[in-house]
């Protein structure tokens, strides 16, 4: 397959930052609007896949190494489980930040409200950990599969 044309590469480079910002917005506001860790992470990963398809796997594999993605993925999962362990003075997964004076500690009023981001307790932090893990995981899957296909194509020639 020949190189993708210059139009595709330019448009993909312009669209990718918007995709990333929208994905991170969906992750961060998971406790207020529809969305959350997996949904936002899938959006950012689809942005990375767009870059992969536009530039070819050789270019992307030079900048993004699969070993670094593996560390990011483990870090996301460890952060999630550590947050669950921190509530162990009452029970596992206890929401110890809701109602306290740390970050994300306010309790919202009951009923319709314009959405206060400082609420939710442990949930936004867990959303961020899951989002990081999903970004790293899905990008690693697509990157490894595309590298695999490229190595087969080179072997066939």
């Amino acid at each position, binding site marked *: 397959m020949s190189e993708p044309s210059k139009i595709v590469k330019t448009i993909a480079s312009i669209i990718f930052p918007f995709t990333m910002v929208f994905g991170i917005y969906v992750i961060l506001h998971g406790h207020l609007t529809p969305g959350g860790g997996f949904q936002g992470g899938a959006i950012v990963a689809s942005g990375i896949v767009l870059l992969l398809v536009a530039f070819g796997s050789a270019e992307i594999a030079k900048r993004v190494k699969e*070993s670094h993605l*593996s*560390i990011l993925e*483990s*870090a996301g*999962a*460890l952060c999630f*489980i*550590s947050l*669950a*362990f921190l*509530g*162990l003075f*009452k*029970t*596992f*997964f*206890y*929401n110890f930040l809701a109602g306290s004076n740390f970050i994300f500690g306010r309790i919202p009023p009951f009923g319709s409200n314009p959405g206060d981001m400082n609420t939710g307790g442990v949930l936004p932090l867990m959303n961020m950990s899951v989002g990081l893990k999903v970004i790293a995981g899905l990008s690693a899957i697509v990157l490894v599969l595309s590298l695999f296909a490229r190595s087969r194509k080179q072997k066939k020639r």
Partner: protein
Amino acid sequence: MSYVLLHAPALLIAIPLFAAFLTPIIDRFSKRARNIFVLAVLIIEEILMIIFAWDVFTNGIHIYTMGAPNPTSTVPLQSAVPVRIVLEVDGMSAFMGLISTTVSLAAGFYSIAFVRKETGQGRYYTLLLLMLVGMLGMEFTGDMFNLFVFFEILSIASAALVAYRSYYGDAVEGAFKYLIISSIAGPMVLFAVALLYGEYGVLNIAALAKAMNSTTLDMIALVLLISAFAMKCGAVPMHFWVPDSYTVAPASITAMLVVASQASLYALFRICFTLYGNTPYVATSGAILILFGLLSMFIGVTMAIPQKDIKRLMSYHAISQTGYMLLGVGAGLCLLGNPDFSTYGMAAMEGGIFHIFNHALYKGLLFLTAGAIFYKTKTRNLNEIRGLAHSMKFTTIFFLIGAFSIAGLPPFNGFASKLLIYESVYHVNPILSIIAMLVSILTLASFMKVFHSAFMGPAMKDVEKGEVPKSMLFGMIVLTAGIILFSVAPGWVVNHIVHPAAQSLANQSAYIQAVMGD
């Protein structure tokens, strides 16, 4: 200590989960540190599980609500049903948890030397710990959807490990078949859970059992659940994936796959006894389980006899032994409302449940010895292996212990559990007992053939002499110690370990009251 025991259900699942994701980071620094870390986690799990199981057997059911202000507050003041995910550990759950941690410890020790020369070992140990998490999660949970989630975690981790030696083409083929079967069973379970949720509005097993009304939709859900979990146990007629995937997995993973199938067996029993315990479907589902058991026993052993591949032969025997467990517990299920239950129904259930632990121990040991043979001779074909008793003395002894146990010869533990099954199932129908004894004789014949052809005779030429590495031997010693302990004192084991498990399985009202009553 009481703090640890209070939080033990969550800690037992969370510690391997944390360690599983820490392993790739440690692996980047040093391989020895990773091995020591994984072994330390498995040993801590085993010790914690033994202490916790002892507490459950003496003190009763343990409840753990995730995320509540207090571990035992299941039903808040404003509502009438339990909220949040509730882990409920009764005697049967603790029993299965003991089996999972013991076999994982043996597989962990064995793997240190067995996969030393392979690539991607960091991921191997991560997936091994995730398999343990999936098994313990399925056994401890008190919530139907949580059961489905851990069921899928277990099947994905197992499928990835079956394909571990991806340079062999048939390993990936076996893993593909395993994953297709899991992917059919998973949505079936989810559909049944959706049916039950749509009808009753709760997902907690105890709350569902209390609200159960035995409508037609409940019968559809029961059929779907029994088929899905029997598909994952390897019961005939859904057993076709068992030989293919047990053969090609690395030997320590095959031992873990045996325990993974038994976790599905536990889920089947939990559904039939606790969720549907008060419905009129109990006698029919017991009869269906007895039918599955008979077919599995007979077809498993008859298809095992002509096999030439040693692990394929052993996996057909695994199907056959699963039939014994289904026969014993199915007979107990059939008699659940009857006044005869306390005489021989309970004995049948105890035989079946005792057989679960015995089977995990001796079948795990047999698979580990087959892996040791493969490690030395690089082949699994019985026509090519000869005369290994000259150089591999310890492996020969372990194989003999495992073979005598699986055939049900006294004084080993296989004899104890099979005797319980023969005697109690005889009262249900004498033909069942006769078929069980016939299958036992055929099992003995099959393993004598394997022993004679693999270990006796002149030694093979191009095989290096000497025993397998020490860590592999240590893994086999862990399982052999369990077998010898159970063979020497079967009465103590039945009274203190198996009887609480069987009693808690049959006691549906205590299960419901632990969650809803307080």
